[in-house]
């Protein structure tokens, strides 16, 4: 394997009539990686995964699995499989029969099939009695595990997920996210996970690919995407952020010292709400601004403030809730941060 990626896309495209769902896409997935593909609905991520598993034919480009071209192979001959958003369990089969389905297709002897199914039940922490249970007797979380077990019984090179957790309630989702992460580490398989929830992607994955309107915006580990987004779309997608367009001068910002560097390069300056702090009367920072508090929100350990700048621009700041007499709505104050805590997005 070494340097051959397990999955590689070369200029993969997909158009429906006159609508281009996917612009030429390039991607390399490492063996054993957990890659999350994240994007808002309608960004083409479901189309992408349907191309990857073979349920749709690409309009152009190619898909390579361990150096072999697979985009012309039909889905039932590809060594990959997918956990559906609906799970797509077979309602007329028991839990055990669902899990054994891919093995039955390969004519595995019944005894070996059952043994493997029981192993998988154990791996997914389902009791052995579930082997004979009907699908409609299982809860949502149990069905997730059965669908996973069935996919693992197939023993795929890559396991794709099409938002399988999106229909579950918050707490169960959180539990299953961690289980999935754990399962990934125990099985050592390559997981490619599609979701619209960045939070989900950050908890589980090694790398995140952010998609927008049929293109990858950025592909990097979560920490890097958070600290150094390559576009304002990614920056905003990653959570609450303040963006300042510096192409027409510094505007509301007062730049000194290292902060001056940003003024000479055109782009968008990103300041995270938690990077901002309140400046004392004689205090200065490399980047500073004066602002008026318009609202405050309690976030538990921190307080979030909505503020407006002299130009009318609204920004957000988050401060630790250390002292009781923090700023109140209506107060005027000065905010600042270090140049090293900010990030300049070149494209603007």
């Amino acid at each position: 394997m070494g340097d051959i990626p397990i999955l590689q896309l070369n200029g993969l495209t997909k158009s429906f009539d006159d609508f281009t769902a996917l612009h030429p896409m390039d991607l390399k997935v490492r063996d054993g990686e957990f890659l999350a593909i994240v994007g808002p609905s309608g960004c083409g991520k479901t189309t992408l995964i349907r191309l990857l598993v073979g349920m749709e034919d690409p309009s152009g480009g190619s898909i390579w699995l361990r150096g072999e071209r697979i985009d012309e192979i039909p889905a039932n001959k590809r060594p990959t499989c997918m956990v559906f958003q609906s799970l797509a369990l077979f309602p007329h089969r028991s839990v055990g029969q669902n899990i054994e389905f891919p093995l039955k297709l390969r004519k595995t002897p019944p005894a070996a099939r059952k043994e493997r199914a029981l192993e998988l039940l154990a791996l997914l922490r389902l009791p052995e009695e579930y082997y004979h249970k009907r699908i409609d007797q299982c809860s949502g979380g149990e069905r997730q595990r059965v669908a996973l077990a069935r996919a693992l019984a197939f023993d795929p090179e890559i396991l794709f997920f099409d938002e399988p957790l999106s229909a579950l309630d918050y707490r169960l989702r959180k539990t299953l996210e961690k289980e999935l992460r754990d399962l990934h580490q125990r099985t050592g398989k390559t997981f490619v996970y599609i979701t619209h929830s960045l939070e989900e992607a950050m908890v589980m994955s090694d790398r995140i690919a952010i998609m927008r309107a049929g293109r990858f915006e950025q592909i990097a580990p979560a920490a890097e995407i958070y600290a150094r987004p390559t576009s304002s779309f990614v920056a905003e997608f990653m959570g609450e952020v303040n963006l300042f367009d510096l192409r027409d001068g510094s505007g509301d910002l007062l730049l000194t010292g290292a902060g001056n560097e940003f003024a000479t390069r055109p782009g968008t300056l990103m300041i995270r709400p938690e990077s901002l702090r309140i400046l004392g009367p004689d205090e200065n920072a490399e980047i500073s601004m004066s602002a008026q508090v318009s609202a405050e929100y309690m976030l538990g350990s921190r307080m979030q403030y909505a503020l407006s700048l002299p130009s009318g621009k609204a920004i957000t700041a988050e401060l630790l809730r250390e002292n009781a007499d923090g700023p109140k709505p209506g107060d005027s104050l000065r905010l600042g941060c270090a140049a090293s805590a900010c990030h300049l997005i070149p494209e603007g």
Partner: protein
Amino acid sequence: MKGREHRLGMLYALPVAGFLALSFLAPILLVAAFSIMPQKVFTIFHMPDFSAYGEFLAQGYWRSVAWSLAMAFAATAILFVICWPLAFAMAKVFRGFTLVLTIGVVMTLFVSENIRLFGWVLTLMKGGLIEGHIRHWTGTGFDGLLYNVPVIVFGLVYVYLPFMLFPLAQGIAMVPDDARQAAFDLGASRWQILREIELPLAAPGIMVGCLLCFVLSAGAIAESKLLGGQAVIVIADEVETAFTYGQNWPLGAALAMVLIAIVGAIAIWGISKADLDAMIGRRR
């Protein structure tokens, strides 16, 4: 509360239950009573006499029953095979065209079965549409295509097509698309998807369609009389003859009872297998 609702439900069901008993059960009981009536004695107050059933065995009437059942079975099997692709297309592929097709198939039911079969007689008979044209063009004719067993089966297939097509389409509509896609993704071939996913999940529709066609075909009479001539005598024909020309009511009733017993047993077995709840969407 539950008990009261239960009692109310029973009460509401009473009129329909009474009507069904009167209109469905009573004629069968009457026929059953006729079948154990001594011959040429028109009274139902007498000692039971099973000689009509003896006659059924001795006179070879079982052959007519066998022909009826065999042709009904053949027609049902052929209907299933030809209707499956069409029903699949109606349920999953055609969009607006399904309505056109439905109207087209239902329209044929507006014309009486006998008139439609006479149409086929005119088409298939010697000197009819097909044979007449061929003789005109080639100079050599043949005996026409009527009066044999295959043409009776053809008639049954033709007449009962809607009774297979619509239940099948309904059954296939119950097969979730994602289950088919998931099976395909997990490595199933087209045949494996058909066997493992589509047939079991569409089973209620298949069962209803097959039962309707089988039961109707087993009791059919017009196809064998009009298209089949005297090629074979079906059991319904024998029943009619016994009641009319024969004036042997006990025999006719006994023949009818045998047919009812066989077909009823098959129907009850089929219904017990089919999940009618799923069919009308109470589950899933």
